[in-house]
């Protein structure tokens, strides 16, 4: 049977990809970010997962507001790298796990999560900007992904509790898939930042630290906050960290945070946290 062996929460700021693509590992301005991802990359190398299930958001790149889904599950075999205005990043197309994703679609819909599905569409930095930091292509990607896109752009967004419950349903889906697969769940986004209005540039490290603590120790408290709370505490775009709740919901209560890193160089707080399931 497939099983979830761990989880990763990570920011998906586009400059993370830029720093990787431009080889900034030894640049003092970026070294703290690269260093923070090293333990995650080493853990993945040691554990050799087959599939990464990605809770992420599209940035009005692949999907547009003429038809904007709340939860959309990728069921394709391959996803091109999206063109976000400068042409695609120089990394290979992402490879999807068709069998697991089809099973997840059936399981989720029968579990009353009525997912939209997509295939043969490109994926933007919301998924692959952090991915190259911990699962770099050498030269091809080490495994397959199942993307789950969440609307965090156009209100009404799914509630924090709904995101957590989606994660729980994804756990039931993965754990009922008959093939022996080691699966990691990833939630991307945040932490504090705001990209509009005169409040743009807002950060709140105190809240970010509290979030990194609660997502491990008491995610239930995070599910009781409203979007307005998230926006007040972490900025309009910081509210996308509700996608971490989907990741956390897909882990067991016994999962433990074994590493975290936090770096706030510019506009968005860049964090990564690694969670491990008990053996």
């Amino acid at each position: 049977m497939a099983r979830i062996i761990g989880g990763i929460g990570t920011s998906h700021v586009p400059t993370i990809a830029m720093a990787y693509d431009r080889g900034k590992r030894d640049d003092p301005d970026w070294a703290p970010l690269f260093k923070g991802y090293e333990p995650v990359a080493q853990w993945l190398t040691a554990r050799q997962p087959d599939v990464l299930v990605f809770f992420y958001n599209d940035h009005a790149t692949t999907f547009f507001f003429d038809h904007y889904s709340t939860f959309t599950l990728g069921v394709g075999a391959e996803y091109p790298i999206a063109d976000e205005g400068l042409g695609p990043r120089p990394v290979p197309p992402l490879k999807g796990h068709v069998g697991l994703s089809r099973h997840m679609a059936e399981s989720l819909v029968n579990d009353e999560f009525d997912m939209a599905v997509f295939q043969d569409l490109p994926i933007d930095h919301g998924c692959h900007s952090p991915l190259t930091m911990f699962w770099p292509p050498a030269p091809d990607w080490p495994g397959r992904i199942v993307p789950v896109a969440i609307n965090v752009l156009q209100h009404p967004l799914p509630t924090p509790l709904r995101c957590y419950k989606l994660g729980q349903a994804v756990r039931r889906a993965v754990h009922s898939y008959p093939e022996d697969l080691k699966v990691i769940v990833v939630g991307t986004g945040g932490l504090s930042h705001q990209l509009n209005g005169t409040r743009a540039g807002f950060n709140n490290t105190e809240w970010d630290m509290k979030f990194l603590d609660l997502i491990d120790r008491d995610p239930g408290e995070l599910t009781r906050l409203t979007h307005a709370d998230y926006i007040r505490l972490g900025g309009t775009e910081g509210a996308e960290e509700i996608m971490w709740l989907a990741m956390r919901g897909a882990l067991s209560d016994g999962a433990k945070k074994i590493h975290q890193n936090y770096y706030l160089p510019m506009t968005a707080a860049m964090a990564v946290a690694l969670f491990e399931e008990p053996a």
Partner: protein
Amino acid sequence: MNPQLKGIETLAGTHVFDLAASAKALRLNRFLHGLTVPEQRALFKGDPEAAFERARLTAEESRMVRELDWAALIAYGASFFCLEKLGRVKGVSNPEMVAGFRGESLEAFLKTRNVPGAR
């Protein structure tokens, strides 16, 4: 009123992208989103006025894009993530756009950051 957004109206300097903003700026956001398509990007780079006309932008929408008036664009209802495409095509970084929202120069904004070179 969306109960998840209760109280947000008291938060100064903040635009929430909701269905009203999305509807108001749909044509503008569609134009900006179109900059991910190489042909539409090439038209905008080569003949911006023709691109505005093809997208049926209003005079004010065209002006805001032409002048990269970031503060006006975001107040009007442009999605930041659609504006990000315009930023990339015009060679404008996100910190510079954020400075625009704040009504500051890039230099002034960078003085408030921990690592001004990380962009």
